[in-house]
């Protein structure tokens, strides 16, 4: 008789993101995994360095999406203060994601969700989360609809997250992104109709 599953991984948070930060001094241009980030290449003039790490661009995109999710939750709570407790778990999770990714993404590689002129081909969750030209997400006036909007955004974030994890070059980073997307999937269900649980 023995425990069914192998022992826990001992990876630290630092280890988990070392792979991403290692290539931090790269330009975004030209090193996005094809089919994953089709945003305009704003820095096309800057030649990618030989050690360009495509995962830095990927991390920047995910960071923008996670921040957009956090902004949507904040806007929802601002409009419906009674929802604060219900959305607290999701808010804390996405804050943890943002904190982790912020350490991994160098400042010059950040993607601003509001400033990004994403085409509709972009898988980014941010356009649907924050469609308002002012950059602040629109929140439904009725509380149940506001919760449903957050749940739907979580669902999209989970899908985009799985695509990002699939595309990541580094296995270590892919694993972290996979965990983040699984978290979003949990929140989508937890905030949705609980009758939908398997």
């Amino acid at each position, binding site marked *: *008789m*023995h*425990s*069914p*599953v*192998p022992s*826990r*991984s*001992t*990876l*630290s*948070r630092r280890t*988990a993101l070392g792979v991403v930060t290692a290539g931090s001094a790269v330009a975004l241009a030209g090193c996005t995994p094809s089919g994953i980030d089709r945003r305009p290449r704003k820095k096309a003039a800057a030649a990618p360095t030989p050690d360009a790490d495509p995962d830095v661009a990927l991390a920047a995109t995910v960071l923008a999406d996670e921040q957009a999710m956090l902004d949507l939750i904040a806007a929802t709570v601002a409009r419906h203060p009674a929802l604060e407790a219900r959305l607290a*778990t*999701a808010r*804390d*999770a996405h804050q*943890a*994601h943002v904190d*982790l990714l912020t350490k991994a993404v160098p400042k010059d590689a950040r993607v601003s969700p509001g400033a990004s002129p994403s085409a509709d081909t972009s898988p980014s969750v941010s356009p649907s989360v924050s469609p308002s030209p002012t950059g602040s997400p629109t929140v439904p006036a009725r509380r149940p609809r506001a919760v449903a909007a957050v749940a739907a955004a979580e669902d999209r974030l*989970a899908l985009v997250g*799985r695509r990002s*994890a*699939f595309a990541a070059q580094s*296995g*270590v980073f*892919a*694993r*972290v992104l*996979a*965990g*983040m*997307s*699984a*978290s979003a*999937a*949990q*929140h989508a*269900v*937890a905030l949705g109709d609980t009758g939908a*649980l*398997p």
Partner: protein
Amino acid sequence: MTPLEALQQTLAGEHAAVYVYRALAGRVSASAQPTLAARLGSAYTTHRGRRDQVTAMVRLAGGDPVAADVSYELPNPSRTAAQLTDGALVTEERCAEVYASMVGSTARANRQWALDALTDAAVRQLSFGGRPDAFPGLPEL
């Protein structure tokens, strides 16, 4: 970990999950706990299907699929409904760790399989009393 090792580790996890769910499903009263019985049955079917899929994936990768052990330790006495529920939750948490590990050690179709399995395990945890977590499957974070 090589991709084949990751597949074998996942297969070992599925063997364990199938064993545990068969035991848990056999102990639940379908009349007294119909919802729990249905959820345990669904989990058993899911993991049995995954076990067969990963067995095929190991063969495709040129490996000799690891066999199941004769028996596995259940997470708890598994007598009350609360224990059965918690045993299922622990099983899904352990599986989520294995799937996340597989994501990191594989690519393409096998990584996609692991991503889908991780998402399912994370969501399934909620139906067994689990709470949403910031990093399902990543115990160190």
